[in-house]
């Protein structure tokens, strides 16, 4: 897949996260992967289609998910990764992908996105829609990482 397609997703992350309270966003490594993603604990899949087709997985530990949910909810304590926290992370994934879709359209690719699917479990596998995909690690601060896996057919 074309490496330039990673930028719309990275830019979306860098633009959206400060709006929900994470000011210092860093991009770590980018790699091309070929095996199924191993979930860190919480993984959200969002599909897209139209002029390019694929899906994106947002992969993070439950601790990171709790921190993000708490920050999104104005610092409300999140002890358990419960319904409310899960729906915050789903909503964030929706915002990130919608924002990436806007960025993609400025590159000339119109896409529509699907409803996010958030899964929680222990080291389960997630297979994105193409054999090779790009994996970007984003640092939201305090050692909390969100891996974005982007697959385009």
């Amino acid at each position, binding site marked *: 897949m074309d490496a330039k397609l990673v930028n719309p997703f990275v830019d979306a992350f860098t633009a959206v996260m400060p709006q929900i309270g994470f000011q210092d966003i860093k991009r770590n490594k980018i790699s091309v992967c070929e095996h*199924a993603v191993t*979930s860190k604990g919480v*993984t959200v*899949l*969002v*599909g*897209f*289609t*139209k002029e390019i*087709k*694929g*899906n994106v*997985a947002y992969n993070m530990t439950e601790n990171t998910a709790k921190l993000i949910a708490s920050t999104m909810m104005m610092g409300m304590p999140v002890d358990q990764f419960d*319904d409310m926290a*899960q*729906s915050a992370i*789903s909503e964030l994934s929706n915002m990130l992908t919608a924002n990436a879709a806007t960025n993609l359209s400025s590159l000339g690719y119109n896409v*529509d*996105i*699907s*409803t996010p*699917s*958030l*899964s*929680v*479990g*222990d*080291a*389960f*596998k*997630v*297979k*994105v*829609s*193409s054999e090779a995909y790009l994996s970007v690690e984003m640092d939201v601060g305090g050692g909390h990482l969100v891996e974005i896996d982007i*697959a385009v*057919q």
Partner: protein
Amino acid sequence: MRKYSVLVVDDSKVIRFMIAGILAGTEFEICDSAENSAEAVEKYKLLQPDLVTMDMNLPDGNGIECSRQILAINPKAKIVMISAMKDASLITQGQEAGISSFLQKPVKAQVLIETLQLLAKNGKGTPERVKNAYVKPFMKVLKKNLFTLAGINSKMSLEVNKAEFLEIDGIAVVIGLTGSPVGRAILKMDKETMQKFSQKIVGDQIELSEDEIIDNIEEAANIIVGRGVSVINDSVKDKEMRITPPGTIYGSNIRMDNSNVLSFNITAMTDLGEFKMNVGFAEGE
């Protein structure tokens, strides 16, 4: 911009206040509120609001009964039930009465606004209509293709999903639905069913690796969901639904959040095991 009028039926002043706060500055305007069932029916008759939000517990009766009376005045009345409990029997009874949507207290601002917007624009978006237009086609296609792909017969069932999450033990292929309405379709099965089904598709002579088994299930799901969407697009002419490529989740004890979608469970009971499909749409659709 024309404002949509909303009648708020709730005996709690706090809830009425909260709803007013959510709707302030939107395209919705509260024309009045009612504290009990009798007052609600009387005010509905008088004001003919575009939309009604309805509490379940009212001092002189319940919200379902009150909705029945309103729907008797205007069968096209658009009523959103907002209740503390949102269980299956309440939804079933409410659907039968003709209530359009069900939300749970405390209702999130965005969810309420989106639900009202959909109702205001799309007419009565009852789960019953969603089920007939968008879910039943998947049930037929699943049955047909399990037979075409692997020669297996199945006994089908369909129900509204009541669980907050889907349990995955084995494999789940997730295919996004875009266009109108937006949602997702998931085909899931346990490990044993996945192996047997995959083997049945290719025949006993060929030995399959785990990756190939997963690929087969993914391809089967893609075919089934793709055909289901074609059937829907053929029958619903003015809108077009599309599918995204599949994403596949496998492992044990995985929970997939299902709380923000109106979803339906389709089960195909076969000799190989159970094939489960969950078809869900963003809430309020």
